[in-house]
């Protein structure tokens, strides 16, 4: 029963999320709103039950399995990728390196800024 109950909790929050996004016409996928609402619920309740913790862990532990069916859908786009493979590969490579570097620099910069300010207050 715990497995069913905790899967149901996740589905209920997803359903509320989907409904909310639809009714309020906000540009966010329903499950993301569901995640946010569940987070609020967890803060209010001071943490997940052991069962919910395990159910979430089980689902997220093999997250990669869940995008296999969509990944196989690439076979429908074979001609697009054939035509654009060079542009796609270069974009992925350059943008990944750039994103990682800029994210690291901005986090590092902010930390230094805050440390400098902290010293200024002493």
């Amino acid at each position, binding site marked *: 029963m715990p497995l069913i109950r905790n899967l149901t909790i996740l589905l209920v929050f*997803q359903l509320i999320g989907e409904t909310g996004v639809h009714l309020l016409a906000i540009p966010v996928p329903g499950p993301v709103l569901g995640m946010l609402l569940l987070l609020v619920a967890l803060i209010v309740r001071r943490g997940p039950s052991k069962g919910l913790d395990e159910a979430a862990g089980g689902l997220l532990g093999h997250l990669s399995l869940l995008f296999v069916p969509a990944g196989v859908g690439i076979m429908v786009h074979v001609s697009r990728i054939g035509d654009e493979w060079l542009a796609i590969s270069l974009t992925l490579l350059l943008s990944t390196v750039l994103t990682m570097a800029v994210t690291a620099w901005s986090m590092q910069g902010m930390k230094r800024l805050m440390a400098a300010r902290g010293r200024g207050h002493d």
Partner: protein
Amino acid sequence: MTEAAHDTLWVYLSASPLLGLTVTLLAYIAAYRLYEAVGKRAIVHPVLVAVAALIGFLHLTDISYERYFEGAQFVHFLLGPATVALAVPLYHQLGKLRRLWAPIVVATLVGVTIGTLSSVGIALLLGADLQTQLSLAPKSVTAPVAMGISEKIGGLPSLTAVLVVVTGILGAVLGSLLFGLLRIRDEDVRGIAMGITAHGIGTARAFQMSRDTGAFSGLAMALSALSSAVVVPMLIHLLGIG
């Protein structure tokens, strides 16, 4: 059994959702075993191997993607509840978020913006089609959310799913090299950069670097999912291409 009976059995099985679902799980289990056998090298990531094996299988058996998906949709459906479930690890990281919230929030917003603009911009410069550019835009976001964004802005969710996996693998493979070159040593900085760029696949790699690096990466992945859902469609709207 006679050959005719074999044929009837095959016609029955290939039309049933049972086949699509079962081969998906079998392919993933086999791919995961291989991944473990070679010491979890990101280059043989189980998603890539399973997808390649399944495409081969569908070609050999002449089963269409639509028919395969009738079975595989039961796995695909779980992406929604899995996204909701991200709230649980996020809750566990809240303590870390409180201490470093300003640098983390700034880095997340900067990272999501650069990730989106650079992928659309570079793809545009290299002459990729508009729908390809839009499918590339959420490539650093965890798959279930990325596919939702892609659908919303007019990309191809299934193309996005594959681009997300490849991005995750690139980030996981290049991460340590890049951090070494840039002399980034702080575990929190490494973790945040990994999670923003390479979502769950990067997070798995970050956990191999250290437990704290992994925890920060998981936090960044969830924050990126949350903010990207708003920021990516907004940027696309501002660019006027959505």
